[in-house]
């Protein structure tokens, strides 16, 4: 049977992709460099902000947020975590990572919430979107790291772009879920009182989907943090650096304090955003 002859490669997809990427890089690199600009500007502003603020003020800001949205325990934990990170000598790296996370989450929200709303209101759009979201979440980052570098060159901004690809799906999925979970009779009631589709969205669906949207934002933040080390491989700064450096030179201690700081930052951000979404 010729059909089941798998000894030779019949479909040279790898070559096609190679050619396509090469061709895109050759012809459209400038275009992709322009796409970088808004991300670059936002990141610079954030980095400047966190680098300029004295550590004491940063800790106070986070402690205040924790106090306002959660409880005493999280507040104490937040202060202790930031102090520990500072005493470990990783304050600057932590601030860079924080800027990167906030920057990528910002762009994820800007793109993800409208896409999620559209998916929530249209079954066809959701069907269309789903395979892309699956691919974004499961494709190993290393696969798209190289084309990203080829198109956007190395550095923190490329790291953020790779992070956005990975962290975008949860906010889309959970926004869509939130819209779909709104009781149909509430939508019906709004329509019966003469609401336009836009009013239904703004006054009923979106406010009621808010807890789910916030849960999506929380997941996006967590996933963005998990990309920190991978982003460091393509030259992004921050807490990924000590880990990568430690791995390269077999300095287990250095890798450990980098990893520990990432975990602490993740826990602080998780608890605070969960507190916000439950309010």
């Amino acid at each position: 049977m010729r059909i089941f002859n798998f000894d030779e490669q019949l479909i040279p997809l790898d070559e096609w992709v190679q050619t396509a990427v090469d061709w895109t890089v050759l012809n459209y690199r400038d275009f992709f460099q322009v796409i970088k600009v808004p991300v670059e500007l936002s990141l610079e502003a954030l980095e400047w902000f966190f680098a300029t603020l004295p550590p004491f003020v940063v800790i106070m800001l986070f402690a205040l947020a924790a106090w306002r949205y959660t409880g005493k325990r999280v507040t104490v934990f937040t202060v202790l975590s930031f102090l520990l990170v500072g005493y470990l000598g990783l304050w600057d790296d932590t601030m860079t990572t924080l800027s990167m996370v906030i920057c990528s989450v910002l762009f994820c929200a800007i793109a993800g919430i409208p896409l999620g709303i559209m998916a929530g209101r249209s079954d066809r759009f959701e069907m269309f979107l789903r395979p892309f979201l699956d691919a974004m979440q499961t494709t190993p980052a290393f696969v798209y790291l190289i084309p990203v570098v080829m198109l956007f060159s190395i550095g923190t901004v490329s790291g953020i772009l790779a992070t956005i690809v990975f962290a975008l799906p949860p906010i889309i999925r959970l926004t869509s879920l939130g819209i779909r979970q709104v009781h149909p009779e509430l939508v019906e009631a709004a329509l019966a009182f003469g609401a336009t589709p836009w009013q239904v969205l703004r006054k009923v669906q979106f406010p009621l989907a808010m807890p789910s949207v916030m849960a999506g934002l929380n997941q996006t933040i967590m996933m963005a943090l998990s990309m920190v080390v991978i982003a460091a491989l393509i030259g992004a700064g921050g807490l990924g650096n000590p880990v990568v450096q430690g791995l390269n030179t077999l300095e287990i201690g250095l890798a450990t304090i980098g990893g520990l700081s990432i975990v602490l930052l993740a826990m602080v951000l998780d608890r605070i955003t969960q507190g916000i979404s439950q309010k």
Partner: protein
Amino acid sequence: MSQEIKVSVKNLFKVFGPHPKKAMGLLEQGLDKEAIFEKIETTIGVQNASFEIYTGEIFVIMGLSGSGKSTMVRMINRLIEPTAGQVFIDGEDIVSMSNDELVKMRRKKMSMVFQSFALMPHMTVLQNAAFGLEMDGIDKLTREARALQALEQVGLEAWAGSMPNELSGGMQQRVGLARGLAVDPDILLMDEAFSALDPLIRTEMQDELLKLQAKAKRTIVFISHDLDEAMRIGDRIAIMEGGKVVQVGTPEEILQNPADDYVRAFFRGVDPTNILTAGDIATDTQVTIIITDGKNPRAALQRLIKNDRDYAYVIDSNRIFKGIVSTDSLRDLIDSPDQPQLIANAYLDDVVPAHANDSMQDILPEVASHSWPLPVLKDDKEYVGVVSKNLFLRTLHRSEQEDSTAATA
């Protein structure tokens, strides 16, 4: 009641499922609902419904679940798109309206109260009551003032700042009602609005609705599966079965002349004394004496004897009821010549006339405790007729017979 037509439904169809056009064709060929579903898995929700709703009446659409009544009411404000037919509101066909016109019509002319209340959980009671006005773009100050007025009408102004989930079911539905009233609609659609409430609260809400209706007449389309409720509040009732409207009429008309066994079965177990009123059964077969200056007790007595009756009903030239005289009371008067010989002096004591709207149950004690047939009067004391013991029993007997024939059918 004026008979001005507010809503007119003409040959309305709704088909749910994959092949609405095919189903319509099969309907034309004369297939019924079940056969069509078996053939092409398409459900006929409403089938060729036509009726009219008058301005200011409470029109109850009644049927068991699956009879298409909820679909019906949603086609009146086009939350469900009709497959064929027309719905006229004040003469305008809403089926052919553009989206903009439809939104405007929903904002200005009608509102809706839902079985599940459908209050917005993220808004306060006041914001919920103001919801329709907010959709209409009315500024915050005005709409909250009007919403507060609506809440006052249902007695919930003290709860304006609460969230809906802090309220009991009955109170939540009051908010739903206030939301419907706040936009001051011509037409109020109520989809099983009281069905989710426990019986005591349900009766209370029905009374509340009737009270509100007495203050400001609106056209109310009320969906219900509960016959008692339909009888209690409905000026007219449409009965639906399997997507068809089988009968439209006043509760009395339907009770006395059910269109088919389905309707009759519905009414089995209904106590007719609750529904039939004194006015429904009263007959004008008694001797009446029109009181004028010339009439004296002797002439009256003569008429009674000639007609072989014991009692005569005295009315004036406008048929206003004055009193009852009997052969005995007239004789007594004639036998005591020192009294002025006026018919008015022969009136029987303790006559308590019934009102035409009193139910048979209400008048039973009066009918039973006196030997004279009970006079029945309208609002302005105009004489309608009488209910005798005999007539009362005959009416009861007839409805029982109908029940037993329905039971054997």
